[in-house]
């Protein structure tokens, strides 16, 4: 009798294993299909951009041949942009604005997050919720009132106004990321540092920032993306080419009336995407670690 029971158990186990195997197979197929759709949707536009950027204007406007292939590849669009003083200006402005935005945003949000998550003063809970709520206000609602303020300070058509404005977009989310990150650091670590003789700033500098480095990198990437890719504010506040940043410079300079210089626009887009691509490629591992930190112990 015991043998039959054992045999039946083995059979049930085998069946279960079989169905597990099958459901895993279905899951895999599902993932492949979903990922394929994703890849097509997201990689076709950059591919088309690259193809177009390598064509001469004549080839772009020619009616014959497939628009997906390049017959006479040329770097003339890239060469034109690299040697074009306006484009150099936009690039430099974008770099200046972004670096300053990232630095200002990170200094503010790290200090804010540290005090909100660790110093436990009266109202700190409400404040940290408030910080997150400000992130939910869409920038498009703010740009008209902000236009008034920027006008009064006299920074209209001056890229320094962006250094003032972008942190208002980046700081709430960065602070929120950092609050989450700092909160995941065990309380005993600051107590040990306090007893070891550290003040609050030393504790922040020597313990919290190094331990929360993945979070800081995640927040930095976010601030960078906000600043590098912002379109609405520079479009509203900047109108001469010496003040413009890449996002608005490209469209205002390379679209003349109803003439779209597609080859140059595409090349400019690719050149403008280089810094984010490089930064993401180097910091991707940290970024992912930063976004999932605190989800599990250890």
């Amino acid at each position: 009798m015991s043998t039959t029971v054992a045999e039946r158990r083995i059979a049930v186990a085998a069946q279960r294993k079989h169905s597990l195997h099958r459901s895993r197979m279905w899951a895999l197929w599902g993932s492949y299909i979903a990922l394929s759709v994703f890849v097509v949707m997201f990689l076709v536009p950059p591919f088309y951009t690259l193809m177009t950027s390598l064509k001469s204007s004549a080839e772009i406007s020619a009616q014959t041949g497939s628009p997906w292939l390049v017959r006479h590849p040329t770097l003339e669009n890239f060469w034109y942009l690299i040697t074009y003083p306006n484009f150099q200006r936009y690039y430099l402005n974008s770099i200046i604005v972004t670096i300053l935005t990232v630095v200002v945003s990170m200094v503010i949000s790290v200090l804010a997050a540290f005090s909100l998550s660790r110093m436990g003063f009266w109202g700190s809970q409400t404040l940290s919720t408030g910080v997150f709520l400000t992130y939910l206000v869409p920038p498009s609602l703010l740009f008209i009132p902000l236009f008034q303020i920027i006008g009064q300070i006299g920074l209209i058509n001056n890229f320094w106004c962006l250094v003032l404005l972008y942190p208002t977009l980046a700081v709430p989310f960065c602070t929120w990321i950092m609050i989450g990150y700092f909160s995941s650091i065990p309380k005993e670590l600051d107590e040990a540092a306090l007893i070891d003789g550290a003040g609050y700033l030393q504790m922040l500098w020597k313990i919290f920032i190094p331990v929360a480095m993945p979070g800081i990198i995640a927040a930095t990437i976010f601030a960078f993306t906000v600043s590098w890719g912002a379109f609405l504010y520079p479009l509203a506040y900047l109108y001469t080419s010496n003040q413009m940043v890449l996002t608005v410079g490209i469209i205002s300079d390379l679209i003349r009336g109803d003439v779209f210089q597609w080859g140059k626009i595409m090349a400019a887009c690719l050149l403008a995407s280089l810094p984010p691509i490089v930064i993401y490629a180097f910091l991707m591992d940290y970024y992912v670690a930063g976004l999932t930190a605190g989800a599990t112990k250890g």
Partner: protein
Amino acid sequence: MAEVACRKVVKEYDAGVQAVKGIDLDIADHEFVVLVGPSGCGKSTTLRMIAGLEEVTSGEIWIDGDVVNDVPPRDRDIAMVFQNYALYPHMSVFDNMAFGLKLRKFPKHEISRRVDEAARILDITPLLDRKPRALSGGQRQRVAMGRAIVRNPKVFLFDEPLSNLDAKLRVQMRTEIKKVHQTVRTTTVYVTHDQVEAMTLADRVVVMNGGNIEQVGAPQELYHHPATRFVAGFIGSPAMNFLPCRVQDGANGGLAVRVTDSITLPIPPNRVDRYGKFKDRSMVLGLRPEHLFEYHEQAKPGWTRVDLPVDVVEPMGMETMVHFFVDGVPVCARVDPATHAEPNEILPLTADLNQMHLMEPETGRVV
């Protein structure tokens, strides 16, 4: 090196909850004092107040002759070892230990001399370049202790430092901590909920319960002369048996305790005076499992024999625990491992009443 004292120390949280209800405690120089008690008894809060990590609601804390209520932790010259080690994860073992000295601007050669010395005491010299994540639990615990030792502080504070270790390592580290204390002789306050740790480590044990100190004394004193039922039940493993009883007249003009209708035990003549005034009152009889054992006619002539049905038998190797019920009250006896005991069988038992304790049921006071 320093004395530590608490004078009527109270800790009250915002909601009006008192975690510590006015305790008085004096800790001598070089002394190793263990605060022990169940969760929520206020032992950790007391330690954290000594460390300066919690504010004192009222009362005074003295370290080395000064009131330190308003002194920040870093100026109290204390070192603390935490339950979860609290090592700085991004620093090497050396840097972890050197951190406090660096902040205090010690010269480099002095820092490395002290760290090397502490590493030698704790046997972690080969680990100095590693990061905490590459260490085992026991090694992390040593580093945490090393961080305390290098500072050469006035007082060591330990907050349940062994709770995260497995049983075997815990015993090993316990010995280690005792050895370190014998070497450096720094005044130590140690918090644990484990009474075995408390008994083995302490010069003096402070038993706390519900924010109050129940009793302070040397480990042997607490074991043999508990002041309250709580201490009697908390110290010793397995815990003391408590049986409701009544003191009444015994044979030959003596006294006896009547536990049930069928069980009446004679009180030793030398205790008759002490217990006489409780005659005809309901009391609680306390008997440790080790003072309750199998009955042998030849070995213990004249001892009272009680036959009880066995409930559960737990062989431990060097001894065997046997559990019974007396009138619905669970009782544990520690018998010789050679004794044959099976569940539901009757086992003849006897008790060493020279080791008995008698308590008032209302106050829990041992009389």
